[in-house]
């Protein structure tokens, strides 16, 4: 999958590793989850009503289009969540694990 975002500066930050849908990806310290994912791929989730791919829209916490989930079921807004080393993210909702 082609990446949507391109890094244009600040490229020499420390690398971190997290897991997206079970695959390990490399990101940089200070990346939001949205940037960590979209510099690797071209979608964050699928719309619940027609399964079309979505990749966020407003980047300021207003549109709610960039939701991803932790494997434990916690819902995160990718644009306003800082990526942390070791995070396990899924781009598919796992509702049966919420309120574990």
């Amino acid at each position: 999958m082609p990446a949507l975002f391109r890094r244009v500066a600040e490229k020499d930050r420390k690398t971190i590793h997290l897991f997206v849908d079970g695959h390990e990806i490399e990101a940089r310290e200070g990346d939001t989850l949205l940037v960590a994912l979209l510099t690797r791929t071209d979608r964050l989730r699928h719309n619940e009503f027609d399964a079309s791919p979505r990749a966020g829209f407003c980047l300021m916490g207003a549109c709610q289009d960039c939701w991803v989930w932790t494997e434990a079921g916690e819902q995160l807004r990718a644009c306003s969540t800082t990526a942390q080393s070791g995070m396990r993210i899924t781009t598919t909702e796992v509702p049966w694990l919420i309120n574990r």
Partner: protein
Amino acid sequence: MVDQPVIVIGAGPAGTRAAQRLVQAGLRPVVIDENDRQGGQIYRRQPENFRRPAEKLYGTEAAKATALHTDFETLRPHIDYRPGTTVWGVSETGLMTVRASTVDVVPFSRVIIAAGATDRIMPVPGWTTPGTYSLGAAQIALKAQACAIGGRPVFMGTGPLLYLVAWQYLRAGATPAAVLDTSSLTTRLRGLRGMASRARVVANGVRYMADLARAGVKLHAGITPLAIESSNSHVSAVTWRDTKGALRQVACDAVGMGYGLRSETQLADLLKCEFMFDPCFQQWRPHVDRNGRTTRPDVYLAGDGALLRGADAAEAAGQLAACAVLHDTGHTIDQHETAGLHETLAVMNRFGRGLAQAFPWPAHLAASLPDDTVVCRCENITAGEIRRAAGELDAPEMNRAKALTRPGMGRCQGRMCGLAAAEILAAAREVPVREVGRLRTAAPIKPLPLNCTVKS
């Protein structure tokens, strides 16, 4: 609730200056900031391990941004700062907040809301395709994350931000494929008189356009957006109609779109402030006097969340709203201070009206959106569904339309689609947009995690 603190919601230019003025008077306000770091959107800070200097991030506004950030740091010991915290509702005893998954109730004696604004969006077929972002988003990606939304983006919409963002992308090495502006040269000339009150700002805008043109970026005026094209669910081109009516297309890998701003007014609505229709910006907003007082004695507004006048005006309005709070609670305010701020804001008002004339909201585009265009991107409600509400289901106003065919019912609560949906409804019913009203706010104004715990 007299002994309760004054709360400032928002820590952008308006919220920061409001808090600063309260501290100067000896108060210790609670400052609730949805962002993790102070600065708001326009002066948004990059993460602490990024190294670009302020000049690189904020251009001509670097000195102002730096002043706002450093002034806030000196305030920190004197305020109760709550970053990463969202106000999502109102109860009888205070404001309902959430941080991570912890819910709290914060009582207040007075509250200054400086909630800012988001991009004002007019949908276009294909705008849910990955690679399409708001103009604000395109700028945030660059400023806060050092990323471009694509290698060859198109910027489409209208307003000063269109050219600023395009210019910032040019400088960052992601040369725009084109800048497509729905405003015409005629409207821009018409707005110039009002805008002339701030010659420096106009000169900056002209410079951005000149730099873009010199770099070979085509700047098209008076365009009609037709579609964002895609290939493999990825933006591949933008199709539009030019002033002569000819069909045009430009290849690109991303789109940044926006048509000016819309105020974040949900909290004022939950607090039962009265609203009015602003004919200049063609949108509903809370009623405020020139000091930021609303129709509720304990609620004040400042910044773009009250009146769309930009960051400089927001700083003055924040200070003024704090002066109003202080005056109303028995402090003495030097009239020279408020007179000076009123003078500053009078210039901003003229300028803001000029901008709205120069780069008008293209309301007319709503009527010609194809029926199958997605308007509500949360739930994929189409223009046709809104027209069905207007016609067959006879919805006379937005809340009825929302109840019947769900525009604005999704989890963004109409922030992205609400104003366009109102235009579609108004056009279908052949009435002015003010007659279809505005979406009522419902708490929580932002989605809450399902596993919230209440702070004891």
